[in-house]
């Protein structure tokens, strides 16, 4: 593909490719007598799908791959996303016929391998988090959050308590707040203090008997360990509220501390972050929930239990909140995460958290001369800078991000967490080498200089990409959300 073609990819969709009458797949003849067809009134006239040959399809999608940045092509320091390397072996393992070609409703005696794997994974995740029971049902982090909050709700209702509020720090990820609403609760923000911890005074003020839970991300989205955690747990529990951990950032804590030991009652994990399953451009993931014993009876259905003869069965927890998905969760993702834990063991997990944290602190050390650090502390797995110094030169964080593209890097997460002005949130992960971090820091330092000397270079970046500064405002104002035939458009 020439550069020109690369730039023009967007103008030709599958519907514009191919020709009437083409197809990419041959199908067998019908080997049974034909049945009478249903009444024509039940049938569709037109099936307006693309008509492409197999070579065209392969070419189209192969060429699209060269337009995507990915962990497999470069450093992806997107904060709060844990873009670590995804082992290729695990992709092969998840595709083993005994995993990929198994129907979810097969008789239980024909799926003992799958159930054993799920049971073991439940146990491994419980051990890692220091919790007592695990549900593998949720399909992603936010799904796990919802499951957790509904589980807590069911627990409290079972105790005859009907509470209406959930506390969420102002640094929280958007899913936390949205989850609270989706679960039918009222959301109460809690301020952070000057050290980036939960403000205990604010917490004390907000905390009453109507509070169901506090959703705390640990380390929080500033990449910091909440130094008040012990008090927070105590305060919550004194009011009969539950302490929930958004475990999306667990990569920092693997084998360093068990979430359960810190007083948390429930935690959701993102297997597609911490446990190295690939992000897929936005999923699939899996968001298992681990809970203390008192919450276990309320977990969603099913969980896997081992029975007397050593075999495995699906069970519905006694007072389950019910089902959160059609079947048993994202099994294919579980296989990968299971493989990951088995490949590392306890020492390997510890090496992960150590290296992840070391890498983030190295970025902090190398870049602090050029970028403002809103909280003067060492970080854990990620570091959040502020682009405020650059903004003074008329350069925005988004300009820095776009300029990084010219240097061949994926930009960090920007403008999040909201409590940091012009936030630049960088999570290097443990699978990046020092050389890569050095190259990235060099680019960031060069950009800081450019911001001083040639700010226009940043404001018009990227210069070296197939497309530059797409019109997002226009896209939202006049949404074009699908291909349309010329005559309909």
């Amino acid at each position, binding site marked *: 593909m020439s550069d020109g073609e690369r*730039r023009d*990819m967007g103008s030709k*969709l599958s519907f514009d490719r191919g020709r009437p009458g083409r197809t*990419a*797949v041959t*199908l*067998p003849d019908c*080997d*049974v*007598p*034909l049945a009478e067809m*249903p009444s024509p009134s*039940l*049938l*569709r006239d037109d099936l307006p799908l693309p008509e492409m040959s*197999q070579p065209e*399809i392969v070419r*189209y999608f192969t060429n699209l791959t060269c*337009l*995507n940045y*990915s962990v497999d092509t470069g450093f992806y320091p997107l904060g709060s996303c844990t873009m670590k390397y*995804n082992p290729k072996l695990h992709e092969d393992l998840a*595709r*083993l016929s005994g*995993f990929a070609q*198994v*129907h*979810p409703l*097969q*008789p239980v005696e024909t799926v003992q391998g*799958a159930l054993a794997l799920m049971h073991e994974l439940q146990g491994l995740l419980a*051990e890692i988090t220091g919790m007592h029971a695990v549900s593998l049902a949720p*399909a*992603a982090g936010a799904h796990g959050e919802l499951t957790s909050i509904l589980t807590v709700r069911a627990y409290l209702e079972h105790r005859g308590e009907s509470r209406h509020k959930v506390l969420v720090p102002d640094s929280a990820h*958007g899913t936390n707040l*949205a989850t609270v*609403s989706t679960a*039918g609760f009222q959301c109460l923000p809690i301020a952070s203090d000057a050290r980036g911890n939960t403000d205990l005074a604010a917490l004390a003020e907000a905390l009453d008997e109507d509070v169901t839970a506090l959703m705390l991300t640990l380390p929080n989205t500033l990449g910091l360990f909440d130094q008040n955690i012990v008090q927070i747990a105590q305060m919550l529990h004194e009011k009969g509220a539950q302490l929930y951990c958004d475990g999306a950032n667990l990569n920092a804590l693997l*084998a360093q501390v068990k979430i359960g030991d810190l007083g948390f009652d429930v935690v959701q994990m993102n297997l597609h972050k911490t446990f190295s399953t690939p*992000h*897929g*451009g*936005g999923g*699939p993931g899996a968001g298992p929930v681990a809970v203390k014993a008192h919450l276990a009876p309320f977990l969603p259905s099913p969980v896997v239990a081992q029975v007397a003869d050593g075999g495995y069965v699906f069970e519905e927890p006694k007072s389950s909140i*019910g089902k959160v998905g*059609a*079947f048993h969760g994202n099994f294919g993702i579980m296989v990968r995460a299971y493989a990951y*834990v088995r*490949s590392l*063991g*306890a020492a390997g997990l510890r090496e992960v958290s150590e*290296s992840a944290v070391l890498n983030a602190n190295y970025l902090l050390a190398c870049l602090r001369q050029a970028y403002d650090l809103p909280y003067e502390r*060492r970080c854990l797995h990620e570091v959040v800078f502020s682009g405020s110094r650059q903004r003074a030169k008329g350069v925005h964080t988004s300009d820095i991000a776009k300029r990084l593209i010219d240097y061949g890097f994926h930009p960090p997460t920007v403008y999040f967490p909201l409590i940091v002005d012009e936030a630049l949130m960088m999570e290097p992960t443990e699978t990046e080498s020092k050389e890569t971090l050095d190259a990235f820091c060099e680019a960031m330092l060069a950009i800081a200089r450019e911001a001083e000397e040639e700010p226009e270079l940043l404001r018009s970046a990227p210069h070296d990409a197939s497309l530059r*500064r*797409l019109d*997002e405002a226009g896209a939202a104002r006049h*949404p*074009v959300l*699908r*291909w349309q035939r010329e005559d309909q458009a």
Partner: protein
Amino acid sequence: YVPNTDADRRAMLERIGVASVDALFDDIPAYCRNPRLTLPPPLSEMELTRELSRIAARNRSIAETPCFLGAGAYRHFIPSVVDYVIRQGAFATAYTPYQPEISQGTLQSIFEFQSLVCELTGMDVANAGMYDGASALAEACLMAIRITGRERLALLSTVNPSYQRVVRTYAEGHALPVDVMTPDGPALSEKHACLVVQQPNFFGYLEDVEELERRAHAAGALYIVVPEPMSLGMFRPPGEYGADIVVAEGQPLGVPLSFGGPYVGLFATRREHIRQMPGRLVGQTKDVDGRTGYVLTLQTREQHIRRERATSNICTNEQLCALAATVYLCALGKQGLRRVAELCYHKAHYAADRIAALSGYSLPLAGTFFQEFVVRCPRPPREVNAALLERGIIGGLDVSEQIGGGMLVCVTEMNSREEIDWLVDALREIGA
């Protein structure tokens, strides 16, 4: 997978100015630091391969076993191009496409997916996908609540029981009553935000979707239809019979069964409801040089912008499965999808005819079915299935709780005539 060597580590610690990595974790309360973790010892790639192959071998793969299960997850032939594309690291190891300049591969393929779902369902707009069909339905119900401002949900009793349960779980949070109604006379009132209809229904048969549409709209409720996507290869799309929201399980479109997931929920609606839609949307736009490109759009509906007022809490969805569906639909295309649907139809009817002719067996339901149908067995379906399994066949789903003696049998293009005949012979023996 940790590249840094001890030498690297030392240099980095020096730069950071701490003596050991341990010092970086000082904020963790001492009482619980460095816990004892009891995990199995690490395995090398070679050992891991053996271990997981061993576990996989304890499952009965339906690549080797004739299987007549459906009920929400379907075995179809997946052309090799599908897995070839979704295995590509550039797709598989990218994040949600927040930086459009370097994410056009993902963005364009989401736009393709949205377009294909629209064409398939006959609807105006579709999103980038939901977790699965069931949670998509739950979100559709919440969306109906938002749009209508009403507070009751109505589902037909013939909707997949699993889906009903997921709707209840989601409804619980908002204390929304869920009314279950029979297809022939749903008693809707002006309290109902929606009527949910599955087509074909859980038992494989077509509902009278036009009559139901009239009923729903007459009550001012939104009409939510849950079609089986392969059936849309031949049957009328919900957009043609007045659906307001269409959700579906996308698995049959090129996603492997994988013991139940990951799958992908399809979600489509009418243009006027876009801003109440949950999930991610990609829009077409231009860059500064006038070139066509794609961006995430209407993000003000989403959690990362709208936070507690978002239309859903969904963030990571099932993009790679959506990509599989995209490639699958492109590969089968207009002709292929219809042909697969027809193969399923004919084979299922052949099987149904032959089973109905067996003494002791009957088809308790009347009407038009697609690829699934209920067989009334002369013995409890549980026993019949056990006897089938002894003969190396995985039978249909036991639905005797809903339909006396009922087994829900599914036949797709993957079931050869030989397999079907084998099933019929086995049923004859078992029923004798």
